[in-house]
């Protein structure tokens, strides 16, 4: 067990024992990373805050059932990814209700994600062009620096599948960025 995992376990025990400060310490230890995952997944800061809140709410409501079979952080990040998927599903439903059918919310050009950054897309914008499953793998492995095995455990898929998703996610990201560059900077003929 890592030092962080042991510290988390101790904090959970303190929290369950009624120590309010342990609650805050546990949150402080993980909130930035949870928020980072949510922001990369959702791009929208408010939505990321909502997802972060949902994540901690879900986890703390069930923390008494935590048995330390996996690291607390793994459990927490898994909940965060699922919270993001929930937000994305809700967003898709809302857009399908409010937008004309010929506008695909997966197309960044169709949504508000692709406005001011159009001429110089940043990574957050570009990530939205990557399908959510691939994006989750890229965010966890390439942006959050998790090991493939940890990401696999967290996502509940084999390591090989994580590798494949990271690979394909990177490709989508690069293609998206490449398509927005002037032709002279984009040697690929498409």
């Amino acid at each position, binding site marked *: 067990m890592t*030092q962080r995992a042991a*510290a988390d376990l101790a904090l959970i025990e303190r929290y369950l024992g009624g120590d*309010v*400060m342990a*609650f*805050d*310490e546990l*949150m*402080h*230890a993980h*909130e*930035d990373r949870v*928020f*980072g995952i949510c*922001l*990369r997944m959702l791009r929208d800061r408010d939505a990321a*805050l909502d997802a*972060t*809140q949902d994540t*901690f*709410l879900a986890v*703390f*409501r069930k923390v008494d059932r935590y048995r330390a079979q996996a690291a607390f952080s793994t459990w927490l990040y898994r909940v965060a990814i699922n919270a993001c998927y929930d937000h994305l599903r809700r967003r898709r439903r809302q857009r399908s209700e409010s937008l004309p059918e010929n506008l695909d919310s997966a197309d960044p050009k169709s949504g508000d994600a692709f406005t001011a950054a159009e001429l110089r897309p940043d*990574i957050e914008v*570009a990530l939205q062009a990557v399908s959510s499953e691939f994006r989750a793998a*890229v965010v966890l492995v*390439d*942006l959050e*620096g998790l090991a493939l095995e940890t990401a696999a455990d967290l996502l509940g898929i084999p390591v090989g599948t994580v*590798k*494949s998703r*990271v*690979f*394909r*996610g*990177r*490709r989508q*990201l*690069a*293609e998206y*960025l*490449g398509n927005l560059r002037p032709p002279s900077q984009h040697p*690929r003929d498409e």
Partner: protein
Amino acid sequence: MTMHEHDPDTIMAFLEGSLDAARAAAVEEHMETCSECSEELRLQQVALEVLRDTPRVYLSAAESAHLHRTLHGRLGVATAPVPAPQKRRWAWRGTALGAAAVMLIAVLLVAPRLVLIGASDREAEDAALSNSAQTAELDVPAEPEAYDLREGLRAEAGDTLGSSPATVAAGEITDGDEEAHQTWDLSKAGLEELLAVVIDAGGRPAEVQERLAALGFPKNVVDTTSEATATDTTEASAAGSHPCVDVGLSELPDTVSAFVVTGGTTDEGEVVVIAYVPENVDEAVLLSHLVESCTIAMRVP
């Protein structure tokens, strides 16, 4: 070599540099003749470069406080005094540590060879130091009050030596030809107080030095790490020693965009470090390793 079309495993391993020389050479050779694989490699490289240059994101202090308050309410947790720290942890991704051209990172290394008081309880000391260095979250007051470091340390030493000697250390600082002896508190509280001094000085290194000097520290204490180089950082990290110690110092910046305060155990003993991050330093990724290990960091308000 035989390489399957768009073989992800091989391309990823090639990018990671985890192939042996023979296989890597074979892949390079294959790339020269296979446009599909070379294009795949190019796309992967583009994505990796972009991802590696992407900074981490953080909650603002206000967002964090709001999150805590909301969850307290929704979970029915009795409300504890949630700090509204000015601090933010500051980190860069650690993948470009090998960058050759490294701008400066000025380090104030206090007490490079600390001798612990009450060394009989070594385990407790290590635990306290480890706690300071790795888990401390600074709840910095919005407007730090002036702190009499010497008086504070003296008072704390009086309190802690009787109960927990681990939190107080005696340091030896070389000041030119003279040796000044100083005590330094390596507990979380001590580091917070040191950070408060830095904040109060607006993060301006010259003023920080001045204030620390006024508090009894030698003026040239900053120069104690001048022999270290940025290269040392990478080497020291690779060797597994504490990376906070070996960050190079060439000159002090006039202003800084961030700084790191930490304490920790090294082969040399226990140290307290303040690392300044100059503004507009593209090579700030160098600090990633430092900040990854030193959890106490913040932007200058």
